[in-house]
Structure formats: C-alpha cells, structure tokens
C-alpha cells in the first residue's frame, strides 16, 4: 500500500493544477493510445492463441500433445525483453506497434494457455454432452457452454497478460514503442524529473486498477463449479481427421515463432561472441544476480509465511485484507514500486538510497504473491490434527511444529522460493532503477549491451537468463498437472 501513497503524494506535491497540466498533454494522450492499443491487441491475440492451442492440445487427438504442452509453456522461460532482443537482432528495423504486439503476444500467450489447458483437462465433459443432446452443434456447444466454463481461467490469464503489459519496459523500449512504463523510466533517467514521472506513474496505477476492476466485474458471481454429485469423467478427445495436418502446421508454426526464433537468434549471436565490442564478463553478473535472487527469495518466503499461515488457518478479515493489499502492490508495475522506494529512501533514509536492502525490499513487494500462492496451499494441505497428534505424543507446540508441520510444508514453500528466485533473477525494471552503482545483474548487463546494439555481447547474458528461467517451465508444467487432482 505504501508505494501507492508515496507516488500519489509526490505527484500532487506540485499542486493539483500543475499535476493536471502534466497529465493533460498531447504526449500523455499518445502514451495512453499506445498502451491501450497494445493491451487490447495483445490481449485479444493471446486469448485466441492461448485458447486455440489449449483446445488442440487437451481436447483433440493431435499427435504429440505432451511435446506441444512443453513448447507452449516454454516461452515463459524467455524474458520478454530477451525475446524482443532476439527478434530485433534477427530482423533489422523490427519495431513499432506491430513488432510490440508480435513479441509480447508470443511471450505472454502462455499465461492464457496454462490455466485454460488445466481447466480443459480437468472439466467434466458431461455438460458439453448435455448441450449436444439438447440439440446444439459442436460449435454452438463450445460458444454457449465451453466458453462459459472457461471464463474464469481465461479472465485470470488475460489479467496476467494485461498487468505484465502495463509493467513491461525492456521489450517495448527495445522496439522503440513508448508506453507509460518506458516513458516513466526515460523521464527518470534523462531528466531525473521525479515529479512528472510520478504523475505518469499515477496514471499507470489508475490503468492497473482499471484492469483489476474490469476483471472482477467480468468474473461476476456466476457459479462455474459442477453442480450435483457423481464422479467426473475424463474428457474425450475430438478426432481431427483431415484437419490433423493443418492443426499440426498451426501448432508447429506457433512453436517455431515462440520458441524457435528466440532460440535460433540467441544461438547464432552466441557463436559470434568474439565480435563483441565490449568484453563479456559473465562471472560478476552471475554472482550478483544469484546473490540478490537468493537473499530476496529468502526474505520474501520468510515474510510471506506468517501471512500465509493466517490465511490458511484462521481466515479472518485482517488476513484477507493483508492478502488483497499484497496482490494490489504486486499488480503495480515495477517502476511504480521502484519510484516509491526511491522517494522513500531519499526522503527518510538517505544512506539506504541505491543500496541492496532497498532493492531486496522492492523485489519482496513485487513478488510476495508468487510465494503466497504456493506457501498457502502447502500450509492448507497439512491437517491441523497432525499437530494435535504430535502434542499427544509429548511434543510442545514448537517442537511439534518443527518435527511435523514444517517438514510437510517445506516442499510447497520451496516451490514458492524457487518462483521468487527465478522472478528476481530475470527482473529488469526495478533493478535498473534501484541497483547500487556498479552492481550489474545479468539483466542489467544484458540491457546495457543490447541497448548499445552490441548484440554479440548481449547474447551470452541472454542465454544465461534463459538458462536461469528454464526451471520455471518445469515448475509450471508440474503444478498444471497436479491441478485436476485437487
């Protein structure tokens, strides 16, 4: 919540009139147009690609479903700014709205694919069969029943896509497509003008809240769960027949664009590392990235645990409030959080400005929800009766926790730790703003190399970032597979 307040205060410091003047500029109108059209176009394309791919993989007899599943989650292992580098380095003059939409869609459609595929895999085909028996054809069945069932998953995925787009800096800056986030950073880096930056951040925050509200309204209160008893059956897969080849071409094409292009581009430039203008020194960047990610993941996980415990065990109003606030904070773009922390550090804790603790704090604010989801599930999965059993066997409350509950919760908590670790190690925006002078992470080192168009020097960092994020694919695939069981 703090970032929200700080940004609002800074923005309004200059007085409402001046703030109004700063907002009401042709420049802001252009940024707004760019941001909104990017969100709408990429959102639509992601929905179409995500749902289409999920349906082909989960509900048809398409050969190689397991392989495609991996291929459509894998793009998440390539940070969007690395993906945009890969395209820009491959296709000269690649930029503007078209380029931005292409790159962000290919990077973010898995956010739609994952939940929709999980839902398609677990939902009972009974409802669709009922619709067919009531005289609806397959297409109308999908539109009237299937799509309605998919709504929560689709909306959740689109919400993630939209929030990521609002927060995206690296990919769009590289394609020279200005949005609020890139403008805020430019403002800050070029002019050190925190006031107009804050005003833009306020508008950006407004957009994020609008997106959240829209999603909530669209979700509504309709019931999507199964009504009635009876065990759910496995869905049947549609036979594709003559359509098999076109379907394979479509999935293959998408996989080539989303996974093949970045892999090939980074691979080619990797072989030309020798031509780099600047010498590539991976060592220090790897060390500082791993160090920061380790500390931030540890801090975030430990900080999340008590709140997750409260949420899982004693769901009070206070606990729910804490949860909502952390989600809101994390849906704020990294720039906003970073700017707020800069303002706080300069105003109240000068010595901390541009030090590692502030950076770690920013990471924690941004990534608490990722740890929250898994930690909470892990705590909820351990029945409280086991603690009673340990007490009856002679353990005090603390010993019972250490011997029984903690070991059982450890796996889920570790998954949360890993998610935060990966997110931190590929974070660019907040790191650029907050990293101590002289500290380079893989992301910032990649950024400085690629923004001076030294593609050969950027490639090794890009490859290292992809390697670091690769476990994410595995984690997401695993959690997707476990979902139907719960």
């Amino acid at each position: 919540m703090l970032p929200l307040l700080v940004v609002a205060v800074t923005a309004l410091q200059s007085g409402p009139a001046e703030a109004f003047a700063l907002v009401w500029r042709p420049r802001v109108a252009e940024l707004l147009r760019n941001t909104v059209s990017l969100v709408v176009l990429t959102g639509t394309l992601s929905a179409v690609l995500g749902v289409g791919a999920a349906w082909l993989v989960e509900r048809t007899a398409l050969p190689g479903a397991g392989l495609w599943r991996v291929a459509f989650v894998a793009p998440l292992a390539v940070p969007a700014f690395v993906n945009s580098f890969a395209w820009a380095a491959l296709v000269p003059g690649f930029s503007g709205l078209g380029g931005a939409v292409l790159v962000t869609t290919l990077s973010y459609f898995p956010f739609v694919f994952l939940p929709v595929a999980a839902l398609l895999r677990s939902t009972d085909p009974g409802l669709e069969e009922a619709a067919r028996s009531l005289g609806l054809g397959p297409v109308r069945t999908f539109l009237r029943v299937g799509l309605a069932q998919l709504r929560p998953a689709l909306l959740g995925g689109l919400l993630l896509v939209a929030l990521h787009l609002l927060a995206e800096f690296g990919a769009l800056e590289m394609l020279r497509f200005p949005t609020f986030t890139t403008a805020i950073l430019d403002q800050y880096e070029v002019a050190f003008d925190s006031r107009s930056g804050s005003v833009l951040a306020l508008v950006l925050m407004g957009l994020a809240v609008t997106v959240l509200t829209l999603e909530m309204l669209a979700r509504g209160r309709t019931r999507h769960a199964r009504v009635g008893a009876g065990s759910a059956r496995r869905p049947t897969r549609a036979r594709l027949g003559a359509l098999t080849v076109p379907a394979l071409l479509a999935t293959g094409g998408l996989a080539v664009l989303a996974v093949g292009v970045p892999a090939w581009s980074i691979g080619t430039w990797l072989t030309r590392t020798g031509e780099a203008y600047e010498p590539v020194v991976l060592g220090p960047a790897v060390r500082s990235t791993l160090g920061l990610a380790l500390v931030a993941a540890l801090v975030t996980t430990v900080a999340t645990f008590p709140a997750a415990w409260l949420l899982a065990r004693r769901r009070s109003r206070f606990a729910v409030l804490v949860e909502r606030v952390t989600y809101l904070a994390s849906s704020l773009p990294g720039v906003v959080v970073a700017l707020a922390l800069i303002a706080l550090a300069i105003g109240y804790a000068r010595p901390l400005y541009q030090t590692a603790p502030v950076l770690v704090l920013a990471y924690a604010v941004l990534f608490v929800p990722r740890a929250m989801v898994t930690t909470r599930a892990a705590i909820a999965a351990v029945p409280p009766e086991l603690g009673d059993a340990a007490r009856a066997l002679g353990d005090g409350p603390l010993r019972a926790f250490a011997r029984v509950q903690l070991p059982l919760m450890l796996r889920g908590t570790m998954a949360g730790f890993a998610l935060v670790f990966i997110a931190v190690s590929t974070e660019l925006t907040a790191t650029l703003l907050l990293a101590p002078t002289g500290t380079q992470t893989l992301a910032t080192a990649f950024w400085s190399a690629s923004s001076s168009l030294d593609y050969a020097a950027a490639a090794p960092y890009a490859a290292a970032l992809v390697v670091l994020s690769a476990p994410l694919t595995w984690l997401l695939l695993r959690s997707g597979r476990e979902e139907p069981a719960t």
Partner: protein
Amino acid sequence: MSDLRLSGISASHPRTPVLHDVDLAVPSGTTTAVLGPSGCGKTTLLRVVGGFMRPDAGEVRLGGDVVAGPGTWVPPERRGLGYVAQEGNLFPHLTVAANITYGLPRRERKDAARVGELLELVGLPGDHGSRRPDQLSGGQQQRVALARALARRPRVVLLDEPFSALDPELRVATRDAVASALAAERATVVLVTHDQAEALSFADQVAIMHEGRITQAGPPAEVYRAPSDRRSAVSLGEACFLAGRTGDGIVTCALGALPVPGTTGTREVELLIRPEQLHLGADGSGGCPARVVRTEFFGHDALVELRLETADGPVLRARTVGPATPAVGSRVAVTVEGRPHLIDR
C-alpha cells in the same frame, strides 16, 4: 495405568455450548465407551480430556492429579495420554517405525526390538516398520496409530471413532486386534463411537451421551436391559414401548398381564420390550393373537412387524431367526420371554 475422573465438565465452542455438567469415572484398567449420535459432543469431551480444548467449568483428574480445573491447565504433551483419531493422523513424511517411536526419548527411537514388539502387539508383521503410511491399508494405519500411542505407555488411551472410517469387514478385524492389544497392556481406555454394537461389545462401561449430557452410564448388559429413559433405550438398539399399569407383581398392558416380580402399588409406566424378547408361536398356541404386517429380512435374522388384534392394536417388532420368519398376512401368537423393563411415565 491410572483412572480418569471427570466432574462437572462444561465446554463450549465459540458461542455454542457443547458439554453440560458432565461427570464420568473410568476405573483403572477398564474400557469405557461413550455412545452418542454425531454432534452430541462426544469428540469435544475427548478433546477436553486430551488437553486440546479448555473446559469452561469442571475438573479433569488423571490418577488423582488435576490436569484441568479452575486455575490448573496441563498442556497435552505433559498429560501422558495416548490419542488415536478417526483418520489415524499418521505423519506422512515418516516411516511406520519412525511414527511409532515418535514420542519416545531420542536414544530409544533407534530400538528396532521395541518397534517389532509394538507391531506384534497390534497384530502387524515386523517388516512393516520400514514402510510409509501411504503404503498401508486403512485398518493397518489405525493399528500403527494405536502402536504409536501405546509406545509411550500412556496413563489413559483415548480412541475417537477409530474404526468408523473402515469398511465393515476390516472394522471387526481391526477392532479385535485393538481390543486384544489394549487388554494385553491393561490399558485404561475411553472409546468414543456412534455405533451401538461397537460400544456394547468393546467396553466394560457404556456411557450414553445426548445433547452434551451423559444420560446414563453402566455395564453394557445392564444399560441395554434397563435404560433410564426412552432415548437411551433406542440408542442402544431396536425397542418397543407399551403403555402399562403396575399391579401386585404384574404389569397390565396390550399383551395382557405380564409377571414383573417386585412391583407394588399402582402407577402408569412404560414397558420396554426388545424385539428378541418376543416369541412368535403358531396361531392358537396360546399368547396374544397378532397379524404379520411387514418383514425385514437380514439373512442371519429378521425383524417382523406385528399388529396386535386387540382393541387399539399397537404395532410391535419381533426378531426371529431366519428360517422361522412367518409370512406377511399370517396370524401368530405372541408371548414375552424374560422380564420387561419399566420406565416411569
């Protein structure tokens, strides 16, 4: 092993009173079953004894020591109790052996002989120690849970519906194994259950619980034969009630004048007659004439619903052994065997 004494226990969940002034004494080395429908407060009673819940009033004594009472509270880990819950609650991350030795001091945990002894005590093969809880059947898990509770030689063993999650066949086998293990340890046991057959067959003393109160406690045969009220009578098994009036050594009711030695004076009573007390003879063989309205066949025996052919014609239920079951519509002669129990009205 020591005795357990509850006096005046009241307890409540937030805003809902659950237990009202409960008294119960469990003598050392005996088994008491608390019988009642779900929601009557029997699990709460066990949780109060176990130390997982504080009573609002009253006192819990274990072998003379007050463990819960005004100004006294001993946490569960220092009460020295064994607790086996409905789901067993084995620790899923530990092997069977590690589960069993969980409550022992560290140096005794490696004692393989002790694990073998305990497994044998509950009727499981010694090689099960290296297994994981999820590799065991439900009945085996319950036996391990009992072995785990007994490993510490607890003062009192608390069993919270430990057999109800098992299927019928396994339930009987597990119950027998548990009963003999407890008998071998000469344990003081409190079993909570909603199954009347389980309560009657398992325990030395049955306590009937209803809406947070214990309405009656005593030896199973005694409580079954002479329940204190209608509700207790029904909770222990099938029962028929007939209005009657006492006379000198007899009670007059729809079945005629039945001998009940020791009754004097005239008062209105209710007669409790268990279905197995009714004997059905051939029509005209003496006894009250009745017509068979309905039969329920169970295999080993059957329940026969009869309408007496007297003026107001009350409906009775008799238990017959399978092959002797009369056909629906046939006439029979009903006689009462044994002494009917009288409940004051």
